[in-house]
């Protein structure tokens, strides 16, 4: 086992290492929480979602996935995530929302977001299913329109 290079006092070294680990963990936690705190302070508005899509899209995805906002806000979050973040993971998440989320507002937002991913595998199938089977007429129309390209 390598000796600590920065101290000959093992007790002190352990304490310092633990302090560093705690500080690092706190920093990581703060970084992860910062977008959520900003979103909370500013009230989950569209500008915040657009900022998050640029700076930390995984946090925006988490807000949607964990239902951290009312559905009247999550609909914009889902639309902005799909519009501004072009990754397979985002497309997969939006497909899941379309098929499972209880709120038609959020499903519609996910449809609008997913309309920017039409070339990805499975996206058109999901939209066809929504256009045919979604219980909300608004979501069905949005999905049919998304398939127009």
């Amino acid at each position, binding site marked *: 086992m390598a000796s600590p290079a920065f101290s000959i006092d093992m007790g002190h070294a352990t304490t310092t290492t633990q302090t560093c680990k705690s500080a690092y963990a706190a920093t990581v936690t703060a970084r992860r929480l910062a977008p959520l705190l900003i979103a909370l302070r*500013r*009230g*989950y*508005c*569209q*500008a*915040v979602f657009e900022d998050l899509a640029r700076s930390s899209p995984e946090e925006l995805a988490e807000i949607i996935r964990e239902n951290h906002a*009312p*559905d*009247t*806000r999550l*609909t*914009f979050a889902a639309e902005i995530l799909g519009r501004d973040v072009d990754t397979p993971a985002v497309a997969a998440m939006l497909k899941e929302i379309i098929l499972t989320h209880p709120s*038609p*507002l959020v499903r*519609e937002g996910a449809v*609008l977001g997913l309309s920017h991913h039409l070339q990805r595998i499975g996206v058109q199938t999901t939209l066809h299913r929504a256009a045919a089977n979604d219980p*909300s*007429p*608004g*979501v069905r*129309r*949005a999905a049919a*329109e998304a398939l*127009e390209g």
Partner: protein
Amino acid sequence: MPPQRRSKADRLSILLVRSGKSRHTSSEVSAEKFCDAEFQSPNSGGLIRVLSAYQIDAPQLVQCHTEHYAGAGLDPQGRPDFDLEGLAIDVVAEPLDEWPFRMTAQAHCNIRFGSDGEVQRMAELLLASLAARTHEVTKPEIRTYLRARVADADAEWVAFLNGPGVKATWRTLAGL
């Protein structure tokens, strides 16, 4: 030029159009949710006290919708447009500067509300007659309109479609 207030007589037989976010049905959404989804400020999350809208003749709806999305830098999208005629009291003509389309520049107006309560009341009235007041412009309608303008070599659209920064989605939809 100072803003001009339109008289009630001026507003007869025309639509006061506000582009909407969602294809709601009144049975699916509460008044509170409807108001929050449609009239929330993009920047603050609070309710919008000054709504941007257009006063147009009904046959101009597809043109208005298409020009709005193009001029605002958005992708071409089918969305509902809400007719707020008769629901808003303080409507002030506010022609748009530096807007690529003359009709919508001239038709633009602002609807002003004195409080969140006034916005919520308007939203309740709109929701109560939502089906009659919703005019959905579809993407095929936008495509047809756009291609007709291109076929006619419409100067405004030619300039827009060949301008810097135009979204590729507009050129694609126009068949270019």
